[in-house]
């Protein structure tokens, strides 16, 4: 098992393997998103309270879920990189951060658009999830800013890994404190989604989209890690062999 693991962590092997893996993530992901979005937008019944406006859930929830998933991937791979000094896992952390920030932004934007018809406002400070998503976005910004400020890649990897781990310890505390804070001034305008359990004809497209988004996220992440690895190993022979056509001189 460990042999397999070490082989995966070798950049040339990963580069070759990931090229084969990406279509297996991307194609089923797109199919699931197409099915989920079509069924969600046109087939599923309208919500008895929110009407058709609830349908933004099919983008909002997968994005919000991935914004947290990406941070977990980032923090775990940063930790692995820090402890076992696996360079590939630092590359994964570096590649996951901008993706996570984008999904966080997407979740915030769709949440805001959803809030407009539901709460009558683009932004509702009383909603704990909007607020903690915003803090999440700031955490991503801090992580990327620290990475950008350090020129040496090895040092940037380790320093940002420490930050990612400190952030990972803090995220549950942030979520809890924002929940506590918003419970103090109960916004009367807030309509809590959920309530009665979702009927299956609404739930199945949502699950399809969540899985679809996750698979496409995996494909995007693999693609970003590939370019990250190529850049980091740009002085190595195998990169020259991959990038230059056979027989060409560097």
């Amino acid at each position, binding site marked *: 098992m460990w042999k397999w693991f070490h082989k995966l962590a070798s950049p040339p092997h990963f580069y070759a393997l990931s090229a084969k893996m990406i279509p297996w993530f991307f194609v089923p992901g797109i199919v699931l998103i197409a099915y989920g979005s079509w069924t969600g937008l046109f087939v599923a019944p309208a919500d008895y309270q929110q009407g058709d406006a609830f349908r933004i859930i099919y983008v909002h929830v997968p994005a919000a879920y991935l914004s947290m998933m990406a941070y977990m991937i980032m923090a775990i791979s940063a930790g692995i990189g*820090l402890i076992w000094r696996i360079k590939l896992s630092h590359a994964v952390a570096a590649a996951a951060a901008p993706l996570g920030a984008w999904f966080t932004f997407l979740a915030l934007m769709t949440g805001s658009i959803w809030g407009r018809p539901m709460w009558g406002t683009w932004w509702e400070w009383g909603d704990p999830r909007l607020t903690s998503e915003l*803090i999440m976005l*700031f*955490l991503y*910004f*801090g992580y990327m*800013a*620290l990475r950008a*400020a*350090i020129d040496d890649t090895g*040092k940037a990897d*380790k*320093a940002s890994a*420490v*930050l990612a*781990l*400190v*952030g990972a*310890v*803090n995220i549950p*505390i*942030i979520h*809890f*404190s*924002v929940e*506590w*804070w918003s419970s*103090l001034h109960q916004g009367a305008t807030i309509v809590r989604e959920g309530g009665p359990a979702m009927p299956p004809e609404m739930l199945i497209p949502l699950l399809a989209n969540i899985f679809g988004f996750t698979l496409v996220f995996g494909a995007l992440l693999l693609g970003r890690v590939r370019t990250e690895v190529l850049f980091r190993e740009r002085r190595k022979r195998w990169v020259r062999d991959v990038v230059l056509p056979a027989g060409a001189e560097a």
Partner: protein
Amino acid sequence: MSTHTPAPPGLFKGFAAVIRRDVLLAWKRPGDVLNPLFFFAMVSTLFPLAVGPSTEQLQLSGPGVVWVAALLATLLSLNSLFLSDFEDGSLDQLLLSPQPLPLMALGKAIAHWLITGLPLVLVSPLIAVTFQMDSAAISVMMATLAFGTVSLSLLGSVGAALTVGLHRGTALLSLLILPLSMPILIFGARTVALAASGDAVAAGVYFLAAYCMLALTLAPFATAAALRISNE
């Protein structure tokens, strides 16, 4: 360590020496202590000037203003936590010392609190009075500020260690530490606001105390790791 060097000082002695040195340095350069305090007072003055002098409004915004000002003042002083040590080489000595680095990092953070956090807690009632807070709210405010500034010094020491020796360090440090410090701000300011309106405050104070304990136990290890990485 070669054999003819004398035995290194004990754990506690080294720890106390780090604190004593930083406090002594601050004593010799009072500006380091006073500047964050002046900043604290001035930021608090900005708000009444910006939002108007009505008593009702000041009472409503007072807890938040005092807490935001305290947070910013602490943040301002954090940049210098390791900077002068980094520049004159004493940070290298700290890294080479036989004492465990997390303990030294804890000493630095505690010294930072003694220099900036503690004066801030002591000065805060003066600001609070101008915001028409009553004595019950002021005592709660001092308690939350005491726990909160200790946590901020510890959390900030991680950020200061990560950014030491980087250009554009101050802005970067704020970007790293502000999102992480939001729980402290939320519980600090909201608890004082609850006290001002006569509600129960135990939950908030307990939370801040618990956060402070967590920071005391975990942050020094992160700071030590960050110092080693920044000084490779």
